[in-house]
């Protein structure tokens, strides 16, 4: 943490977290002490879904054991208390991402649902045939398919900015594809396959210059560094709780309040109405307008616990640790003959995709699994990106706050053995 950051924390009266210590972090994650196939678990698939600290597990258990009732309904103490806890989670998210207010925080199931919400609510209300949505070739299917569905529904045009051989966004081509018909730029902040961190500042500025709005898929990026909605300058931001050491079933759509206020509801039901009669229904103000039905209550509490957990650690130190693991993995894997790393962006987060000349990624993953090493193998929900690099699949290791250099070594050793096995 920088001296300035320390001063800010001290001024705010919050305790300064102790310097980052991976051994202490590991002790907070119960699953890391288990064996898999008789070997210590080496979990290198956190980019798919992260493991949970005890604080998250205990917060959800405590909610169910002592604080649970439906929210926004009961005129009884337990429901009021659950509502306060649920809305407290929203406040915690708002502070975590420096939202303008908690009203800008819509709880969804995951980032996928958040993007679908924007496409179906904002997109259907404000876009018309011929309007353009610009994405990139490194998007997750979650930031491709909702726009294709919208294209098929109302005739928008979907444009795709290419990536370079190094796996970076081709900014020249991106700027060329931006035009007066571009209404929305929807871009990942960090590729789940390549690890590429996209130049969000330049993207937002270029989009603004054309009067386009910006949606950022923050699923991967928010896990590795604090995100500030005021500083980013985007219009929409989505992320999933389960990648952020929180539970599944809860995610966040952040949007500028003016957008949310102008957007029609997407799903109808309870909780999202002001009044209902068979003749006419009026809708609640945001964010309730977008949260039809009983929400994921305990999961929101769990997400708050994950955010507080991250607030209690030295995140700058954690980030440096993760980048160190990435550098070490890149060096170790590159030193193995026949291993090719896919994605060599200058700005890269703690994800490494690779192929091995003698082994298909699935065979590789099976062998690594026998060594207790969990990696992802496949197209990573980014088939167009795989096509771009002419690959049916890659293996991917991703690093979290709880991973160690020894685990990176276990990965590299197992990859080298697997290469021999299939040679």
């Amino acid at each position, binding site marked *: 943490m920088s001296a300035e950051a320390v001063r800010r924390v001290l001024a705010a009266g919050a305790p300064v977290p102790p310097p980052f210590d991976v051994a202490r972090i590991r002790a907070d994650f119960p699953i890391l002490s288990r064996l898999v196939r008789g070997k210590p678990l080496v979990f290198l698939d956190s980019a798919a879904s992260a493991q949970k600290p005890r604080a998250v597990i205990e917060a959800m258990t405590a909610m169910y054991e002592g604080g649970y009732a439906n929210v926004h309904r009961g005129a009884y103490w337990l429901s009021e208390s659950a509502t306060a806890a649920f809305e407290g989670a929203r406040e915690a998210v708002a502070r975590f991402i420096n939202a303008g207010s908690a009203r800008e925080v819509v709880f969804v199931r995951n980032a996928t649902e958040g993007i679908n919400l924007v496409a179906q609510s904002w997109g259907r209300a404000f876009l018309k045939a011929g309007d353009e949505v610009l994405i990139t070739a490194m998007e997750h299917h979650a930031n491709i398919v909702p726009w294709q569905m919208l294209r098929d529904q109302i005739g928008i045009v979907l444009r795709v900015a290419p990536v370079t051989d190094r796996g970076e966004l081709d900014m020249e081509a991106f700027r060329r594809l931006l035009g007066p018909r571009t209404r929305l730029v929807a871009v990942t902040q960090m590729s789940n396959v390549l690890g590429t961190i996209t130049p969000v500042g330049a993207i937002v500025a270029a989009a603004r210059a054309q009067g386009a709005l910006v949606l950022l898929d923050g699923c991967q990026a928010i896990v590795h560094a604090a995100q500030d909605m005021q500083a980013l300058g985007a219009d929409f931001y989505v992320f999933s709780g389960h990648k952020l050491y929180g539970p599944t079933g809860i995610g966040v759509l952040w949007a500028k309040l003016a957008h949310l206020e102008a957007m029609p509801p997407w799903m109808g039901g309870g909780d999202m109405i002001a009044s209902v009669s068979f003749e006419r229904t009026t809708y609640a103000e945001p964010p309730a307008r977008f949260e039809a039905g009983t929400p994921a209550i305990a999961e929101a509490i769990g997400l708050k616990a994950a955010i507080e957990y991250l607030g209690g650690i030295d995140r700058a130190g954690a980030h440096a640790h993760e980048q160190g693991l990435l550098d070490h993995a890149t060096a170790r894997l590159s030193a193995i003959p026949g291993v090719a790393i896919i994605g060599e962006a200058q700005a890269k987060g703690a994800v490494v995709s690779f192929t091995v000349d003698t082994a298909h990624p699935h065979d590789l993953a099976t062998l690594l699994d026998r060594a207790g090493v969990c990696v992802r193998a496949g197209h990573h929900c980014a088939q167009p990106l795989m096509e771009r690099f002419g690959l049916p699949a890659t293996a991917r290791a991703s690093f979290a706050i709880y991973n160690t250099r020894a685990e990176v070594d276990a990965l590299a050793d*197992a990859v080298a053995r697997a290469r021999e096995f299939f040679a």
Partner: protein
Amino acid sequence: MTEDDLRDLYQEVILDHGRRPRNFRRLDAPDASARGNNPLCGDRIEVFVKTDAEGRITDAAFEGKGCAISTASASLMTEIVKGKTAEEAKALGAAFREMATGGCPHCEAALEDDFDRLRVLSGVAEYPSRVKCATLAWHTLGAALDHAAEEVRTE
């Protein structure tokens, strides 16, 4: 990781057929062909068959990209179905799929002489995520023999 553990799944025959697949080519003017696709892992395969007047398979071949399991399975399949009628080949495929999922009390009888050759792939039953790798070729062959126009998916 001991190699012994892995030999249950990756027997030498599989490694051999995975590295040097037999009948790995396109057939000119096949009597039947089909494409198969395992979207989970990106495996793609195309199977080609030639049949004689009696409907007996005279040649079978495949092309594609896949893991060792799917490549070896396709390679073994193209060897084994030669000389069989379409019905026999489909029955063999059904028995093989049962074996690969671990529940096949009648496999020994159904697969008869071919069982020993295909049994090398029975290890996939212990790896649920890999079963589809082993069965893709047989699904695709079935589609080709049924003259199905659509691409086969194992998902």
